[in-house]
């Protein structure tokens, strides 16, 4: 197809984990100067393939050639030395160090007396600037920036190595449209300098925009390698999910707005809810059966507001009324007791309990609300697990596996099951579709609509304006930790409306404490 010599050739890669064959004879070829996408559903084996290449997992069969030489990396260090830079799916940085230190770890600039910190920080600054993060002081603790920005820091870090191969595993899952464009700019530049880029994303638009070539996996098996420009969407989706795209349930149209009847009481009615330094006082009401979307740019405070509603952080101002009754939601337990549930955007640190099984992860919140000494009867537990495994289509369908061994997308589904099992009246979903494949994304969106139809109040936080606009009845727009607008989402409202609102509203920063 091309006369370039490939830089990476992986042939017949097989990886087995106890009980699962995650990869079964998969081939992958990377050419310099190309962006290559690894496509597949959640759990198809994309991340595993990447980890096979970088030596994180040992392969059971197959060969890896890098630059024509057979290689067996014993870890990422070896891979790095061979010119492969990787940004893994879950952000893997050290939260105890500063942003600059994270960018430069292992590549600090050295002077006559060991590390020259001044030079190192300067270098870090230029790499950060490349990612559009010039506003971040390299000395800022990593723990104080949001997940999305950490993702960008991780990418900046990958640029430090003068790599021949750059691997990006779902780098865009938490970025907003602007940042994606900036990332693409950098990717194009890097590509044009002759680097091979391996890219994973569940956003088809992005795939068609940036990639040249695709390798499609399904259930750990190699399906096909194709050129992007020759492959229509339907065909691609078909190859990924193994059935025709038409069968995929699609919620095309925008949801009809649920009209609030006069005299109807909201489930949640908060006034002036805020916390100094995190989110300025917000008024908000959520009615039964309503989907309220939170829209805003990165760091606008959507997550923070969600956490306050759930009691994960303690508010320092405001009143909180639940079904007309004044409540004090001081911690997640109280929230759950009051039938409020919150699904976090930070799946790894605040969501999954890694070593526990899928079953335990699904039941634990329900168990916690019932109390330690009232175990859920086995029959009931089985029924719950069974129900949500099926409803959410969790794969593999074995609930007795530790959740940490599931692919990212499937972990997310289990977590949603966890919250549904508590039968909340108000469900706060923070980035529920992040990192979820197209099939599952539609499923989750459908779940949200179904829940609302059954009378649940839903807060839907997402960086994808498209789905916020499509699913919400009302949209709360946030900017710089202020609520700047509440938009009734009728037919006149589109993504552009929101973007304009954000751009044109000036936050009176003087108000900030």
């Amino acid at each position, binding site marked *: 197809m091309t006369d370039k010599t490939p830089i990476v050739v992986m042939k017949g890669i097989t990886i087995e984990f106890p009980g699962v064959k995650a990869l079964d004879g998969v081939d992958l070829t990377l050419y310099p100067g190309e962006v290559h996408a690894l496509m597949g559903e959640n759990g198809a084996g994309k991340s595993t393939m990447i980890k096979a290449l970088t030596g*994180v997992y040992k392969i059971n069969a197959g060969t890896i050639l890098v630059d024509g030489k057979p290689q067996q990396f014993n*870890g*990422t*260090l070896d*891979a*790095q030395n061979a010119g492969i830079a*990787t940004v*893994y799916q879950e952000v*893997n*940085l*050290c*939260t*105890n*160090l500063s942003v600059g*230190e994270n960018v430069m*770890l*292992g590549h*600090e600039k050295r002077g006559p*007396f*060991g*590390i020259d910190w001044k030079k190192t920080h300067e270098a870090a600054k230029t790499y950060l600037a490349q990612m*559009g*993060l*010039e*506003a*971040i*002081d390299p*000395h*800022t*603790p990593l723990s104080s*920036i*949001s997940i999305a*920005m950490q993702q960008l820091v991780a990418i900046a*870090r990958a640029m430090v190595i003068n790599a021949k191969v750059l691997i990006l595993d779902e780098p865009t899952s938490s970025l*907003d449209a*602007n*940042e994606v*464009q*900036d990332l693409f700019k950098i990717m194009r530049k890097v590509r044009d300098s002759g680097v091979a880029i391996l890219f994973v994303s569940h956003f088809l638009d992005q795939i068609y925009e940036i990639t040249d070539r695709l390798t499609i996996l399904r259930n750990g098996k190699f399906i096909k390698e194709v050129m992007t420009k020759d492959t229509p969407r339907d065909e691609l989706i078909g190859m990924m999910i193994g059935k025709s795209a038409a069968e995929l349930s699609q919620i095309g149209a925008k949801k009809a707005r649920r009209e609030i009847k006069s005299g109807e009481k909201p489930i949640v009615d908060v006034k002036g809810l805020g916390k100094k330094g995190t989110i300025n006082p917000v008024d908000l009401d959520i009615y039964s059966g309503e989907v309220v979307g939170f829209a805003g*740019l*990165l*760091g606008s405070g959507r997550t923070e507001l969600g956490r306050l509603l759930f009691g994960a952080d303690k508010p320092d101002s405001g009143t909180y009324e639940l079904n007309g009754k004044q409540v004090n939601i001081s911690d997640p337990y109280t929230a759950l007791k009051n039938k409020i549930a919150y699904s976090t955007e930070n799946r790894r640190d605040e969501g999954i309990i890694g070593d526990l099984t899928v079953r335990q992860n699904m039941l634990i919140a329900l168990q916690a609300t019932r109390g330690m000494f009232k175990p859920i009867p086995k029959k009931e537990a089985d029924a719950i697990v069974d129900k949500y495994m099926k409803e959410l289509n969790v794969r593999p369908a074995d609930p007795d596996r530790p959740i940490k061994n599931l692919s990212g997308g499937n972990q997310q589904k289990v977590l949603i099951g966890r919250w549904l099992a508590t039968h909340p009246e108000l469900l706060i979903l923070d980035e529920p579709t992040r990192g979820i494949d197209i099939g599952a994304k539609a499923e989750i969106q459908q779940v949200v609509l179904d829940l609302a139809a059954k009378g649940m109040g839903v807060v839907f936080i997402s960086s994808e304006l498209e789905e916020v606009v499509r699913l919400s009845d009302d949209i709360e727009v946030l900017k*710089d930790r202020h609520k700047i607008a509440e938009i009734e989402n009728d037919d006149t409202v589109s993504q552009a409306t929101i973007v304009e609102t954000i751009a044109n509203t000036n936050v009176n920063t003087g108000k900030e404490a």
Partner: protein
Amino acid sequence: MTTATANKVKAPKKGFKIDRQMIPTLAAVVIFILMIIMGQAMFGTYLRLGFVSSLFIDHAYLIILAVAMTLPILTGGIDLSVGAIVAITAVVGLKLANAGVPSVLVMIIMLLIGAVFGLLAGTLIEEFNMQPFIATLSTMFLARGLASIISTDSLTFPDGNNFNIISAEIKIIDRPKISHDLTINVGVIIALLVVVFGYILLHHTRTGRTIYAIGGSRSSAELMGLPVKRTQYIIYLTSATLAALASIVYTANIGSAKNTVGVGWELDAVASVVIGGTIITGGFGYVLGSVLGALVRSILDPLTTDLGVPAEWTTIVIGLMILVFVVLQRAVMAVGEKK
């Protein structure tokens, strides 16, 4: 994007330069000074040069051990074997010195023995997945056992050995009364050099940065392509070798040793490190904090004596003092977090 990201993070306020992570260490400084002032006010001897001199001379070994212990603790590990390594190297060293082996050679052998135990601990941890606590507990038992198999006698250095170079006192201020002299010895200088070494290692080498990274998250450090395994070996090798160095300084200082030396010193070292603001689960901490911690830990004993604490109560009072210390630190940190 530039406009989008520019308002994501506010430029940090200028002037607020003190890192939150440094607060516990600073608290250690303040409390140490307060303790000295309190001792001086109540008993009038804590600012005597003699007191200061023996604080350093008598605790040069602890300073070295505290630096040694800082490395594994920063990664979330621990080295329980340091006390026992002091014992075995001391016993072997004195045996050799008494057999007429030249002092320099003896010292080298002592350091090598320390290194061997460090290597063993590193191997158990890295190759056999043993947790540092258990691995170094095993090497602790092993070293202590071997030390007593070799000899249970009180051994003293023969005349005319060169160990006394280390203990030879250098009077900086010589007053008529010994309690007003400012004295140091080579042991103290060695301890200070070790502190400098620790500082440079942690803050100016890539190995040091890897140590912090491992403490933050070992799996992240591995995925970031840092030489985690090699660094782990270096850590336990260094801490054990420094323990051997502490042994040299200590034995030279008192001119004798036996198999029971160093019982419980690992806990003193851990206490020093923690008092100095290093978090036992790793990731945060400073060598200089550990040094201060060692000094604070050292000053607790004379304080209890001077306060006339009844014998049965001494360990309770020492425990309470450490408790007050960590609680204060915790409070200071909580206030810092709020800000």
